[in-house]
């Protein structure tokens, strides 16, 4: 193996371990997406709620901010104490980190809906629910989507660290690379697909986001 340079080793590695990398890739992706989806399920309603109750917004966004400042490795270790080893711990960590961008963007998106539009909605006799469903949400959807997009890219990075608590994923390959004799190629073999996943996720969600952009923003 020593006669090959790092790139040749990388090609060799993918040729011989392709299906394994693919398995870790999907594992990695699933962990990230479950964490973000859970956070969206909680974060979006919470964001809507605090947008209507301004006094609460400082408290909730403050708490989410504090969560965000905990270093990811420390967070993993803390959650591991409660949930034990394995995928659950990593999903919970991703969930906590995804809360802030999602809550904040939902809140901001709702805030930015012009009062005039809401007033005219009220003037038309809309109920609160109709106002939310037909006016506020459609107008803030693009911003909410941007938050989810942000969260997913961060989540993919955090999941890589999750290999330390035995969750698997592409981080596994990176860790093996740091332990191995000539691990350069192994580290790349784990890191490149991770970066690729983040880019693909970002581009895909960006595409969806553009399609959801409020009609008024387009000419």
């Amino acid at each position, binding site marked *: *193996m020593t006669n090959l340079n790092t790139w040749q*080793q990388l090609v*060799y*590695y993918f040729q*011989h*371990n392709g299906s*394994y990398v693919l398995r870790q890739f999907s*594992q990695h992706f*699933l*962990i990230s*997406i*479950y964490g973000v*989806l859970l956070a969206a399920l909680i974060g979006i309603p919470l964001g809507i709620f605090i947008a209507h109750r301004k006094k609460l917004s400082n408290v909730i966004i403050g708490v989410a901010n504090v969560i965000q400042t905990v270093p990811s490795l420390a967070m993993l270790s803390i959650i591991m104490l409660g949930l*034990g*080893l*394995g*995928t*659950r711990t990593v*999903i919970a960590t991703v969930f906590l980190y995804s809360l802030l961008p999602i809550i904040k963007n939902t809140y901001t998106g709702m805030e930015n809906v012009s009062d005039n539009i809401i007033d005219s909605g009220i003037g038309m006799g809309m109920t609160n629910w109709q106002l939310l*469903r*037909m006016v506020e*949400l*459609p107008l803030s*959807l693009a911003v909410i989507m941007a938050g989810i997009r942000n969260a997913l890219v961060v989540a993919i990075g955090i999941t890589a660290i999750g*290999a*330390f608590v*035995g*969750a*698997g994923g592409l981080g*596994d*390959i990176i*860790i*093996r690379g*740091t*332990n*191995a*004799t*000539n691990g350069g*190629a*192994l580290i790349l073999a784990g890191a490149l697909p991770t970066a690729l996943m983040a880019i693909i996720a970002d581009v895909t969600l960006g595409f*969806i986001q553009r399609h*959801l952009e409020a009609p008024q923003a387009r000419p």
Partner: protein
Amino acid sequence: MHKIRRFITSCGLLVGSLLLLSGCQPLGIGNRQSQTIRISSLSTTESQILANILSELITHETQNKVTLINNLGSSTVTHESLIRGDADIAASRYAGTELTGTLKMKPTKDPEKAQKIVKKAFKDRYNQTWFPSYGFADTYAFMVTQETAKKYHLETVSDLGKVADQLTAGVDSVWVNHEGDGYPAFKETYGYDFKKVAPMQIGLVYSALAAGKMDVVLGYSTDGRIKSYDLKVLKDDRRFFPPYDTSVVATDQILKEQPALAPLLHRLDGKIDLDTMQTLNFKVDNDLLEPAVVAKQFLQEHDYFRKGAAK
């Protein structure tokens, strides 16, 4: 309006297809079902290969699914994972380490006795079954490069004593504080001290030695890199390091839930000797093959040890 509906439908579709993808397994990646057996392994190459061999054996020969809990830092963490119910099987447990570390008993120099004591203690204290050895013992060993060995005429660990005050030693970071067979006890038994001791990841010591960053290192006797770097292993002439016979450990609970499991695991009894383990390690450390790939090849070569299954 139609946009938001489209958004909600697409979200629904996404969640739905994920659930489909994941099939009957909860979350598609995870655990906590009686059909899923969780195997924990250390961050060493050896442990990961063994874990993958078990995983491949179980998924190939039974209907069960397997989750690997990989990269655990030390035998203590592995032990905890079984005690807390995060894992059902530990892929590699070393009798010597458990004897002094987990059980806090006096080290013994007799491998068979150690195996017996550990087996009984784990059954009584933790309701865990200790399987017979894979057929090889992994032990700590001091090693030097051939040049160093020639220069100072080194053959045994005692020989090191004469020049130890000039040498820096790279050692496994867990070993430094090991009870019974760690650095403090080592100093007592051999009666000397190194100039400097650098604790590091066990996987790094071999290349640190080969690159000349360390004069002497403490590594695992089974590592494939001893071969590839042509290192000189020094004889433990005072028999300081306890025998580290390697075995599978499973919780009694999983063996009860899955009656087919015990005979399956017994297929590996004594099937992997030191040379085989070194070769397997070498394939991963040197030939860039994943432990999963090596494990599969190994089992296919031996037809999943079906012939020996009767005993």
